[in-house]
């Protein structure tokens, strides 16, 4: 089987297996072993199967598209890796559907001859920039078309490139670890649970049935949804699974839904996400209205069988060497007035079409459609803001810690928040420099705000939550400044070390039965595995490493971001603030992460009671920790052969983004630097050194405050009391929202309800009274006149019925004869009436 068939099969199965597990647990969950214990086995087996299939897909991918040259380190090599036409091993394969001759039945295979057949068909023609013309390898196709109406085609399809495969592996791997971990963590749910945090009105303790299987059911659905986003071949499918992820998060965050805090947090996450999704819907509509397709890649028209270009092709057409331009559809859409003018001028539709297409380049020059593309990009990004918890919609994420810790780990590392970043990465070709700038600023703000809040938080999970928000800001910023590989690279490495950190914190909470770091300390002695692995996680997240030699995974990804941001700020001096945010964020990150670690594991126990009860977690929980720790170390490495995550990512770099681009647009002149330029020696060295210095400074500060109390934390807090209060209260964002949105809404509601009660209700009561009066009048009329009539009618009907029932003899054979008589009569009548022929 060739790769273009094999990959969809493998990944499709990997995607569907969790669904099967979900369905199985849904229907048979309570019957799976005692108290549904088998559900964990089923779900874990499913996700492990997915992992296996994803790994197989990775192997298949690498078999056809080996990562031969390092993306890091050697910039020339990186350039070559990014330019497929220079490296013959990279096959440039675009689904053959683009060929007009796709009507014949061969086209159904969604394959046909291997991509080698028309290898280099465009790039060897010698146009200016070979890099910009490079188009990444992607396999696209549809499994099933749900609906076709007009130009809209909603289908279940796939868009598989290197990052898809990579994300599959990452998601399924982390999900596997978390499944295994959760099987141990959730064992309380196997028995009836007494939830002390729920206050019953009677004052009694609340006891409920265990929901073990339900947890794994939701987890399976979550994995299915996330994988659905990753494999999705069009925006509509993305949106569907986007919402599925949302609902799953609602299930999981609200897992302890009896707790007021949990249900509120779940609702909050859900509602905040809806705000973002509204923006996404706008973006979706803009794209569909203008372009008539939501497919990423090229697809086949369901009715004519002709090829139709996908979004990427429309925005970065191949004949324009993948340079970004506003698609004709959007131009014509926004130039509706002009089109109307042409239409009024007369001419048949064909001519009109011709005229319009001739006029489009001119309109494009006039700037038509630019705003629309901007709106579409920002709209899509709005969805990502919600899902990836960016400013201003980041408030849900810390509250989402109400869910069980494995959920936090999953939500924060591999699935939900990753979805936003992934979508921005996926959608990158369509985003204009303006949008990218917006993204970069939003990311920068997020990174800084979240990091500062994390400094003052005392809840171990909250610290991690804000750190997640902050790291997501990093990724967004990286993408915004053109660091496509850097951002997604950080997404992958972050997935590993953040899930590790969360699982570690879960282990700590499991041991201490509290989230409060102020009660911990010195746990290293009793929880060596957790402690060491968490240390690894902390080192990874701050990007520790020996500069220019080797480092934890975060070292590589963070360096890349830093370098890109630095380059960006060099080229766009007016946006230097972004680089400052990144560098400052790195410092704060190092500080609060080590604050966390020191408070938890180092020093002496602060609460002897907690310490005495602490114990190392069971093997089923520590094993994933160790595995993840190893990956947190090595995920960023590039092997001597050139193999590495970043190299793999480089393969699917969007077409036309390999070169720097300077545009003057809505938000002024922006230069989006080419990513490989950031590997240039000067930039690279400066970035690395900055990263190292900031991280070291942060760690030292943390050590000074919490390991060896040279500087008293409380002293510092007292010194900058207003700032400290501001941070402790999380920049008053929740309060701000409360004031701006919630309270006004409540006030309006109160007014409206008052109006309802005072005016409308009275009006209705009065009406009812009047109606009652009229009714009594009417009743009299009814009883005498109407009833009399009805009774008379009934009497007549009754007596007629008595006569007519003689006809119903109950004799089957008579009825048959009646039918025959009727049939013949109809024939005869028809003949008589219409006089045509006896046949009618």
């Amino acid at each position, binding site marked *: 089987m060739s790769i273009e068939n094999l990959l969809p099969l493998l990944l499709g199965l990997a995607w569907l297996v969790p669904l099967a597990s979900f369905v199985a647990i849904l229907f048979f969950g309570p019957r799976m072993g005692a108290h549904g214990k088998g559900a964990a086995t089923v779900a874990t087996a499913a996700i492990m199967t997915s992992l296996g299939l994803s790994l197989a897909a990775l192997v298949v991918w690498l078999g056809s598209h080996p990562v031969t040259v390092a993306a890091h380190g050697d910039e020339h090599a990186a350039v070559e890796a990014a330019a497929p036409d220079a490296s013959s091993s990279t096959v440039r394969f675009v689904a053959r559907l683009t060929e007009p001759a796709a009507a014949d*039945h061969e*086209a159904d*295979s969604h394959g046909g001859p291997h991509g080698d057949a028309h290898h280099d068909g465009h790039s060897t023609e010698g146009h200016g920039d070979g890099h910009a013309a490079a188009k990444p390898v992607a396999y696209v196709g549809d*499994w099933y078309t749900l609906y076709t109406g007009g130009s809209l085609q909603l289908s279940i399809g796939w868009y598989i490139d290197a990052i898809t495969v990579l994300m599959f592996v990452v998601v399924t791997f982390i999900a596997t670890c978390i499944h295994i971990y959760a099987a141990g963590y959730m064992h309380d749910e196997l028995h009836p649970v007494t939830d002390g945090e729920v206050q019953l009105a009677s004052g009694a303790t609340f006891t409920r049935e265990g929901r073990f299987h339900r947890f794994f059911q939701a987890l399976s659905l979550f994995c299915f949804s996330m994988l659905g986003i990753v494999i999705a071949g069009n925006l509509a499918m993305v949106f569907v699974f986007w919402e599925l992820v949302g609902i799953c998060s609602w299930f999981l965050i609200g897992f302890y839904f009896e707790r007021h805090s949990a249900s509120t947090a779940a609702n909050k996450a859900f509602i905040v996400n809806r705000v973002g999704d509204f923006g996404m819907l706008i973006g979706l509509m803009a794209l569909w209205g203008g372009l008539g397709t939501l497919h990423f890649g090229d697809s*086949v028209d369901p009715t004519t069988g002709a090829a139709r270009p996908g979004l990427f092709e429309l925005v970065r057409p191949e004949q324009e060497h993948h340079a970004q331009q506003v698609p004709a559809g959007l131009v014509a859409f926004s130039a509706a007035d002009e089109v109307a003018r042409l239409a009024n001028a007369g001419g048949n539709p064909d001519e009109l079409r011709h005229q319009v297409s001739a006029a489009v380049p001119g309109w494009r020059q006039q700037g038509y459609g630019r705003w629309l593309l901007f709106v579409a990009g920002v709209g899509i990004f709005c969805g990502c803001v919600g899902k990836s918890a960016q400013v201003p919609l980041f408030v849900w994420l810390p509250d989402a810690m109400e869910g069980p810790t494995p959920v936090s780990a999953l939500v924060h590392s591999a699935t939900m928040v990753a979805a936003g970043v992934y979508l921005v990465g996926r959608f990158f070709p369509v985003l204009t420099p303006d949008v990218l700038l917006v993204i970069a600023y939003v990311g920068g703000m997020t990174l800084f705000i979240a990091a500062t809040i994390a400094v003052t938080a005392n809840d171990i999970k909250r610290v991690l939550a804000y750190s997640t928000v902050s790291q997501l800001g990093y990724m967004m910023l990286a993408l915004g400044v053109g660091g496509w590989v850097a951002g997604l690279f950080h997404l992958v490495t972050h997935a590993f070390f953040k899930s590790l950190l969360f699982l570690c914190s879960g282990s700590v909470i499991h041991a201490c039965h509290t989230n409060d770091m102020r009660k911990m300390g010195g746990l290293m002695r009793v929880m060596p595995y957790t402690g060491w692995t968490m240390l690894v996680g902390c080192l990874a997240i701050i990007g520790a490493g020996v500069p220019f030699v080797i480092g934890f995974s975060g070292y590589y990804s963070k360096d890349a971001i830093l370098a890109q941001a630095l380059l960006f700020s060099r080229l766009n001096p007016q946006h230097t603030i972004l680089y400052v945010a990144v560098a400052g964020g790195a410092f704060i990150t190092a500080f609060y992460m080590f604050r966390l670690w020191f408070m938890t594991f180092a020093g002496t126990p602060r609460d002897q009671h907690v310490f005495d009860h602490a114990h190392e977690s069971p093997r089923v929980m520590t094993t994933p920790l160790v595995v993840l720790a190893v990956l947190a170390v090595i995920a960023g490495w590039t092997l001597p052969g050139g193999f590495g995550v970043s190299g793999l990512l480089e393969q699917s770099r969007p077409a036309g983004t390999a070169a720097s681009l300077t545009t003057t647009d809505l938000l002024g002149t922006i230069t989006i630097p080419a990513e490989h330029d950031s590997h240039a020696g000067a930039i690279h060295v400066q970035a690395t050194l900055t990263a190292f210095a900031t991280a070291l400074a942060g760690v030292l500060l943390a050590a000074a405050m919490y390991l060896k109390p040279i500087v008293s934390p409380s002293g510092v807090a007292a010194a900058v009391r207003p700032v400290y209060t501001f941070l402790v209260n999380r920049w008053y964002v929740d309060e701000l929202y409360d004031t701006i949105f919630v309270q006004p809404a409540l006030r309006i509601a109160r007014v409206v309800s008052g109006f309802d009660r005072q005016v409308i209700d009275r009006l209705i009561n009065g009406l009812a009274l009047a109606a009652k009066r009229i009714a009594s009048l009417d009743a009299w009329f009814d009883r005498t006149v109407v009833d009399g009539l009805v009774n008379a009618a009934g009497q007549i009907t009754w007596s007629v019925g008595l006569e007519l029932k003689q006809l119903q003899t109950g004799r089957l054979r008579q009825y048959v004869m009646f039918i025959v008589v009727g049939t013949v009569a109809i024939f005869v009548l028809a003949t008589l009436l219409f006089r045509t022929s006896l046949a009618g």
Partner: protein
Amino acid sequence: MAEFLIETIGLPGWLAWTTVAGVSAFLILNLIAGGALVFIWAERKIAARIQDRLGPTRTGGRFGWLQSLADGIKLLAKEDLMPDGADGLLFRIAPYVSFCASFCAFIALPFAFDVVGLRLNVGVFFVVAVLGLEVFGVILAGYASASKWSLFGAMREAAQVVSYEVPLGMCVVVPVMLAGSMDLVTIGEKQAGWFTNWFIFHDPFTFVIFWVYYTCAVASVNRAPFDLAEAESELVAGFHTEYSGLRWSFFFMAEYGSMFLVSVLAAVLFLGGWNGPVPVASLLGWSDGTAVTAPYAVRLVGCANLMGKATLGVLVMMWIRWTLPRLRIDQVMTTCLKYCTPIAALMFAGVMLWQLFLPGGLLPGSRSQAAAVREAWLEGEADGAPVPEASVGFVPAAGRQVVGVSR
């Protein structure tokens, strides 16, 4: 053959065709009658050997090889009794209905790749359908005999045969699905080559389903351990209790004819038909048209192959009959409805999935695929005169990715 008569001897068309029809009918009729004689003799000898006896030894010199013929003559000479109170017309007509059904089914059976009475496009279906008519004669006989034992036998037969047609049909559909045609000749041709091409060895599911088919076939021709309709220890002789002489022998011939029929069907559908385990003919370079005499030799060998396989099937039925006790009627129905039918259904699904997943991969969306099939079909039709065996596999055949048209 008709062409030969027309062109070489110069007979007018209608006479040539009539001659061919006559010859075919004669051959098939004699095949059944002769086969019945041979099989009855074989059954006696086999039963005897199984039971430490010798069986017939004298008639015809040695081995009693003329015993069945002698019995036949005896039956011819016997008085045809009809019970008082029997429904005369139905009583007389019943054996012929049974026999005709069995006989008619032979029309569509291929004995080698072109030795077939009537090559029907829906051959498999026709054979199974006509075979199902045999039960009608049995029911009539049971009813018309005015005997309670006969009635019991007939009722049992009706219930049993109607039930077993379900799993039997399901089993039969599997080779149809694999070959992409209901034409028995096409099905046979698809299994040409080494014995690994036989459908029984196609995949594990077909291997299982062959045995389900065989079980159901044994049941649908009323052989032990499913011979409820004539269970001699319970119903005296079941539906033919009141029959004697020639009429009884017609039932007998119908029974042996059906036995042979289902065995031939098993051979064609699962065991490679006329193709030997080793493709000797093609190894020797005897494929059609290379040598003048080769086709005839190939046909002869094919016939011998098929007969051998079918005979083996019949012999196994005899072996079973003389070894096992009889099931009870409810157990027979249980076997059919609770075991054979679900297993057949599962295996059917299994074969289908095997076909779907192993050679091709997940099938892409169906809409354009349907269009492609249509195009291909129309294209093929435009090529020339319609070909009888043209067929479309609804499931991709091995090695093909998409639904294709096979010819």
